[in-house]
């Protein structure tokens, strides 16, 4: 089980949290001008890296807040977390083939 550092509550067991997918996806600023493929890129397409991953978690059975986490998808090492409106912790990006 992952030990996830909630920025508000500290380290808690994974079972208290809900995974909320890739983080840092900005809603398009010009929705009416987007093509169907550009909408699909925003809604469905993901980076899904093997290595460093910027993601969101929800502390469902805790403070109820969404926050950012940077985690390695191979080692499951969590580099750090940050509240939604703050910059995610800067870590060296690692990508495996």
């Amino acid at each position, binding site marked *: 089980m992952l030990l996830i550092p909630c920025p508000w509550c500290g380290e808690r067991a994974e079972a208290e949290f809900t995974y909320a997918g890739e983080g840092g996806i900005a809603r398009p600023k010009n929705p009416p001008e987007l093509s169907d*493929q550009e909408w699909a890129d925003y809604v469905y397409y993901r980076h899904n890296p093997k290595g460093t991953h910027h993601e969101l978690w929800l502390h469902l059975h805790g403070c109820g807040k969404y926050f950012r986490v940077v985690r390695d998808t191979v080692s499951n090492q969590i580099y750090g977390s940050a509240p939604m409106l703050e910059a995610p912790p800067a870590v060296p990006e690692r990508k495996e083939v």
Partner: protein
Amino acid sequence: MQKYSAISLAYHAFRGHRHWQRAWRSPEPRQHYDVIVVGAGGHGLGTAYYLAKHHGLRKIAVLERGWLGGGNTGRNTTIIRSNYLQDESGGLYELARSLWETLSQEVNYNVMFSPRGVLNLCHDEHDLKGVQRRVLANQASGIEGEFLTPAQIKKEVPEMHVACPRLPVLGASLQRTAGTARHDAVAWGYARAADALGVDIIEQCTVNGFRIEGGKVRGVETTRGAIEADKVALVPAGHASVLANLAGFRLPIESRPLQALVSEPLKPCLNTVIMSGAIHGYVSQSDKGELVIGGGADAYNGYAQRGSPHVLAGSIGAVCHLFPQFRRLRMLRSWGGVVDIAPDASAILSPTPVENLFINCGWGTGGFKATPGSALAFAHLVANGSPHPKAEGFTLNRFASGLIIDEHSAAAVAH
């Protein structure tokens, strides 16, 4: 290819089993192939087999970073069924299921297909209506299936605690033509049959780049040197996004750990497959006597081939509710695989933004059952450049057009 039969078995028994041929060669890669298939699991090897058999291609290579059948082909819980809700899925999975019936004869290798029936249980009113709807949809599209009442379930599976106070079983769908098969044998059977048709299977050969000129793929860079190819067919399961990234595009895929486990061997006690979406567990008994138990995928993206223990505990808990007598069993081993899940939980068999580069992925938590159908349809796509009639809806276009094939609620085990 040396034919396997009762006569050849007797002949080799008299000669002390010292003169069996190797099941497949281990060739050095050539400079150029007509088609390179990346990934030697069941789907990839099957694709190479059907390309050689149905489409007359002879210069085919299958590249594999690890060993043959060592990914999700060797890590699944071997369940085969075709009782999906949507017409597109029903068509493709039923094509696959019908191919399972004759696959052993087709590749001259016993894949031990055992149509022992699959029950999908429901535990509340909404679940019940969903299952009834799915059975009717299946019957309307010609897929065998029936709805069972609790009394009928008790008759089919007397050892199950149907009147379980916490999770009463209110009904179930039963597909009698569904069942299980030997997972390794599928990879080995396709590998041997493809090799006999001249396909080069090259293990321990990682693809770490693509040669792309003018938007067209020309070959691959590997740890064993560059190899040219007219067409490249990717069948990478959990590593779909990694290969797509090397070729310069993204996919609507997230890779997650999915775990399973087996118990110590028992005398025969369960002659069918039990699945429950509501409580996230399924169980069957292998021919060796082990109970094979699986459940839902882990919540987060991961490439580690292992998941969190509490997810496994949840699957075991679900199975023990239905079969309290299994509580005293010891578990032999557990493992994880990396499954590639699309937003609509349906597969992707598609051309890509790179010309002559094709991808077969997105089978997620249920790809094993589709192996022969997926391979047949993907070989058609790679050879002709246009989708197989049973797989027309499964291209990447559906995410832009909105015609997604939503199987999330209908896949019998929620993801």
